């Protein structure tokens, strides 16, 4: 396969970036998208150029490190997968592929395609936990039965990998889907109810402080989320938040 790549190159956070053309050849369908970038980088290094920097680690869709806007879509054209799970057989000989970083004020570019998503960490530090000490002296794990439906729903919310595609997909760069998933995971469990009011208030406050945009219910986040996190979580967080405001 022969392709034309148009890749965002930016030296660092304070420099201006631009799209640069890279023709590439001998790409096979069995390669993953990131392996295709590996091939490009080897060529660049051999020529004495600097390789394209992009974030990645597990390369199996679970760590949430990889990102990339591929032809305008976070994690590329397929649904329910991350960029590292995308394979080149999805493209055709002669295609042009535009590759850019996730864009949001709260996700500043560090270099080329790599952005800073530490805002997500700070949202979770603001309250994304249950305040229990790790002493080992908690009650037996089966002392509190949890109805399977809620346990499964909590799991679904907890399967968010913190990749940031929801923010990149949103025209307002809102982090509602991410924050809602994190709030929901705890809100659905008896152990998480105790601190529910403080948690939702603190996390939402931090989300706003980080400069994410407002949610206008476009639903783009749900479509692009590689883990299928549902908009219901946003509704649940809004309810939690409202309740917290009334009670608090």
């Amino acid at each position, binding site marked *: 396969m022969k392709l034309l790549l148009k890749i965002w190159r930016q030296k660092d956070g304070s420099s201006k970036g631009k799209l640069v053309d890279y023709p590439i050849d001998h790409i096979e*369908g069995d390669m993953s998208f*990131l392996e295709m970038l590996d091939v490009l980088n080897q060529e660049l290094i051999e020529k004495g150029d600097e390789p394209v920097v992009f974030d990645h680690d597990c390369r199996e869709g*679970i*760590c949430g490190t990889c990102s990339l806007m591929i032809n305008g879509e976070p994690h590329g054209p397929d649904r329910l997968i991350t960029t590292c799970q995308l*394979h080149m057989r999805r493209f055709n000989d002669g295609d042009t592929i535009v590759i850019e970083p996730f864009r949001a004020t709260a996700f500043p570019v560090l270099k080329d395609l790599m952005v800073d998503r530490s805002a997500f960490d700070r949202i979770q530090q603001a309250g994304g936990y249950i305040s229990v000490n790790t002493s*080992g002296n*908690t009650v037996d794990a089966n002392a509190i039965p949890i109805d399977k439906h809620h346990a499964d729903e909590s799991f679904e919310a*907890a399967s968010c990998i913190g990749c940031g595609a929801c923010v990149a997909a949103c025209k307002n760069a809102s982090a509602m889907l991410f924050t809602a998933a994190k709030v929901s995971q*705890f809100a659905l469990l008896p152990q998480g109810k105790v601190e529910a009011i403080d948690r939702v208030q603190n996390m939402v406050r931090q989300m706003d402080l980080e400069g994410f945009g407002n949610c206008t219910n476009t639903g783009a986040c749900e479509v692009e989320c590689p883990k299928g996190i549902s908009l219901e979580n946003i509704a649940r967080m809004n309810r939690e938040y409202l309740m917290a405001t009334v009670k608090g």
Partner: protein
Amino acid sequence: MGILDSKVPSGPLADKWTKHKNDIDLVNPANKRNIDIIMVGTGLAGASAAATLAELGYNVKTFCYQDSPRRAHSIAAQGGINAAKNYQGDGDSPYRLFYDTIKGGDYRSREANVYRLAEESVNIIDQCVAQGVPFAREYGGLLDNRSFGGVLVSRTFYAKGQTGQQLLLGAYAAMNRQINRGKITSYTRHEMLDVVLVDGKARGIIARDLITGEIERHAAHAVVIASGGYGNVFYLSTNAMGSNVTAAWRVHKRGAFFANPCFTQIHPTCIPVSGDHQSKLTLMSESLRNDGRIWVPAKAEDAQAIREGKLKPTKIPEADRDYFLERRYPAFGNLVPRDVASRAAKERCDAGFGVNKTGEAVYLDFAAAIQRYGSEKALTSGIKDPDQETITKLGEEVVEAKYGNLFQMYEKIVDENPYKTPMMIYPAVHYTMGGLWVDYNLQTTIPGCFCTGEANFSDHGANRLGASALMQGLADGYFVLPYTIGDYLSDDIRTGPISTESEAFDKAEAEVRANLEKLLNAKGAHPVDYYHKKLGKIMWNKCGMSRNATELKEAIEEISALRADFYENVRIPGGLNEMNTELEKAGRVADFLELGELFAKDALERNESCGGHFREEYQTPEGEALRDDKNFRYVAAWEYKGAPKDAKLHKEDLVFENVELKTRSYK
């Protein structure tokens, strides 16, 4: 051998840990505030320990190379975590978990450590549930369990195919609570490049900020290494791209012994290599072996026709298939432990029966399971005389409910539908049992430097059982280290803050800088990956699933030559004082190039076969591993002496007072 004192407490096995906890010195809460601890790594082992130490009152700094602690490689664990809860009432107990682990490790681990692990396993589940980890549950609201290979009870707790992510999010949440309280400072995108010793004690680290390239000094009263495994020495493995040995290796070079480097786990069910571009391998969970049957064609000409694309596996009649695990191991069949299953697959492929283009794949077939489940389902749904199509459809639904996400992952990567045609699998490097040598307190041979999780050598002997690594990481971090480190730190309550302005820090920083500059100055012809791939090939071909003295000696020579070439001819664009991902990789590969040689040396020295270490010279007439308890019942702990070939061997004799050493048989 005074230097290798394992510090195992005296007394009966079941009482050792409780007794030890009562005997060791504690640090009072007011004094803990004056003590700083550095934690390198935020996987299960690091995050759990960091959170607990901070709760206790210590000041903790955590380091990880990823952009968030939550992305440590523990996140990728799929199958589950063991605990001797005996919720299923099937006769499980800490003793049984202990016994299975010792046997599974082929009698090359320390009894007292393994017993403690089994004992603490029950607390882990309680703790995680209290933190809000959403484990799988039954309809009655109680926790669900599944079984894993090599054991006869159901003791594995899980969260769909994401157990690692859910447990890590739990530990990360506990960390976040302490970050919010100001007790943990988290340094992300930072790589530890050296440990600093002051008066022989670990008192800090040198780290590089991966965004700015700046080299930083961090001081503390103790340093904990929780940096994970070194499977990437093989280039291709199921580990994350960034997984590395650097932190452990630099500590080794400063005096910590490295134990059993050659003990590597090669997992039987991974997606085979598809071409030279391959950057990593993907695991297909062990749970698939509950229902999948492993086979190759019985006739070599069929295998060849398949490789050439002229024959489809579904066209081969039952009589012409060789279900080699069922044939060789009738008692355990497809559920033999990982090392045994991997070797058997390799044996068939080496004999010319492999089934993909490169001849390095075997089938994992669900057709029989689909038919079995389909018939059962038809019966329980009251469908009389179902036709073949209905049975297949119902069966596929059952299989999808159990393994849907794995099947989907397979299809994405291989572009074949595993419901219709058997999966192709091949063994891949997955886990390293070897690591930094630690005593019962998890302290390395450097005072004040501790090591937890996959990075240490302690609990899994020569082969790890499935679902036991997550257990070890969390037991070490939540329940063991927080106690044992106190014993060491109780001497430090009057030490006061450690300064980074000292000769020791100056020297360590200068050395780190010089090393990085040396790499940058090579200005050769080949990218770092070129060398990493070459190293991987040597390791896989000569130090992989089966080893022999001739090839191990060749490997030692080849790796040492490759290392020399690397320093001369590697090409790293960019500079030191900026983000430089090639420079990061180069540092890691430089360390792999040293570790690889020690690995081969260790394998050469161990003249026996045990667990994942199979020496062709030491096997039974049926091709099974032949252990030599008389001469090799020890931990090989290597002391750094310059080049890997000069490393000095220290032995820790393994004493078995509670189990009888037997030949592992799964026949």
